[in-house]
């Protein structure tokens, strides 16, 4: 049974129709590459899955439940995480707080004052997550805005992985990274798949897509125009779909 089922998704911004009826299924622990030209609607589709955008039409089921009208927080709670293209970090807050943003654990201060954010726990768990990702970061207390692009990327990834997700959407996770760091992300995707997490990877770098994904979906002007098995296709074919030269 599919983990995520999208049927008939439509979304317009003003008079621009960005999603024109998307039908797509994602299976558990599958790594799917989503490619398409700039402005094809990839990020819009993904933000509709996480609930940041609300759809005009269509519905989304996750683990056989309709999640179409749930708020972003509720979808995260069900195991949908996304690493946004613009990273969606709060630059003046520190690394640890960013990783736990929206999900801060609380305790009672001195045993009775309610709602006290457990900063020690946040720091400890954030640190262990960063370590697990093997990232070099000066201190967990640095405001995220002072980190390099690659370090910020790591924080965004750490935030997505800290709460046992079932589906992780990565929108251009390698765009800001050096070659060695890209290797790290691809390895990470492998590990995620092995631990049962489904991944949707968006990238303009077809090398990365072919290295990481078993299935490649091509989006063009708001429609799915190809859904290919990696071993049954090649870069030329994918490129021709992307630019609209195929069929």
């Amino acid at each position, binding site marked *: 049974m599919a983990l995520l089922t999208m049927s008939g998704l439509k979304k317009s911004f003003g008079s621009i129709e960005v999603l024109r009826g998307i039908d797509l299924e994602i299976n558990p622990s599958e790594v799917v590459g989503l490619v398409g030209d700039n402005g094809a609607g990839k990020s819009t589709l993904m933000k509709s899955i996480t609930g940041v955008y609300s759809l005009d039409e269509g519905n989304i089921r996750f683990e056989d439940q309709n999640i179409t009208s749930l708020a972003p927080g509720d979808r995260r709670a069900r195991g949908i995480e996304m690493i946004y293209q*613009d990273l*969606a970090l*709060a630059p003046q*807050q520190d690394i640890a707080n960013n990783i736990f943003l929206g*999900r*801060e654990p609380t305790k009672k201060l001195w045993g009775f004052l309610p709602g006290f954010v457990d900063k020690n726990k946040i720091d400890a768990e954030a640190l262990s997550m960063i370590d697990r990702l093997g990232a070099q970061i*000066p201190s967990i*207390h640095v405001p995220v805005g002072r980190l390099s692009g690659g370090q910020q990327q790591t924080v965004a990834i750490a935030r997505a992985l800290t709460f046992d997700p079932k589906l992780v959407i990565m929108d251009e996770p390698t765009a800001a990274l050096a070659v060695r760091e890209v290797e790290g992300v691809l390895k990470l995707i492998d590990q995620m798949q092995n631990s049962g997490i489904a991944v949707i990877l968006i990238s303009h770098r077809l090398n990365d897509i072919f290295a990481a994904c078993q299935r490649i979906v091509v989006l063009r002007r708001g429609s799915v125009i190809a859904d290919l098995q990696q071993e049954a296709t090649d870069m030329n074919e994918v490129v021709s779909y992307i630019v609209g030269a195929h069929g």
Partner: protein
Amino acid sequence: MNPSEEFVLLSRLHIRLESLIVLIVLSATMAMLSPVFLSVNNLFNIILATATFGVLAIGATFVISSAGLDLSLGSVLGLSSVVGAALVVTLEWPWYFAIIGSLFAGTMAGAVNGFIITRGLVPAFIVTLGMLGIARGLALIISGGRGIYGLPNEILFLGQARPLGVPTPVFILAIVAIISHYILAHTRFGHHTLALGDNEAAAKATGIDISRQRMLLYMLSGLMAGIAGLIFTARVNTGDPTAGLNYELLAITAAIIGGTNLFGGRGSILGTMIGALIMGVLQNGLNLLAVQAYYQQMAIGIVLIAAVWLDQVRDRRRS
């Protein structure tokens, strides 16, 4: 300079060291210029005056650190003052309705601000500027343009008594400040406020209900104006429709020089308290030096612009 260590120190203290230095230097200067400045009586005057707009400045801190703005603080203070006094003096309801009425009027004005702002069509700047006019007008209408004089002793206690030798408004400010510090620095509500001010899209993406957050922030700001209105009423024994005129200027300036980022994402109640004391000392000192009120308004305006200017220079240098 190691940026991480510097940041840890500042964030642990929740204040900005520069503002503390400014407060000390300013106080020392005033003490040298005026022999009266350091007298016990005068120090009481300072903290008493600071207490009223200090509470407002707390409201300003919450809203500004969420990248919002509340220009209606001073007017809502006036409205709250009048509503509380009208219920108890004009309608002769029991004394505690001065408290309930003031806090309720302030919170409701904030709720109206929040409701309109969260519809997303009119920016906070305009909504609260409109409320600045509406609340002041309403205060003048309710009171017929005259002060409502003669509150019961229970209310006067809140403004004029000195339990343990300390004026009650100072106790009220201290309690409000401690609770507010706890909320802003240590609760999820506080974390979400700063995140919203820092990056609204990030706050939304991580599941924070940003409309609800904004709504509550403007209500909180209104509540603070209500508390300040109550203190004002109790101090002068009058529900005064002109109470709090231009206080938003003081409150916003206090928050900014206390280290609240005008563009959101950073703010601390302790910092704001230092900022409020700076404004209190400045006003008091200028009074002692017999500087006309007109010039004082100018001085405060200059301090506000200079504080934001310096803040921006600092941020530029850092990045």
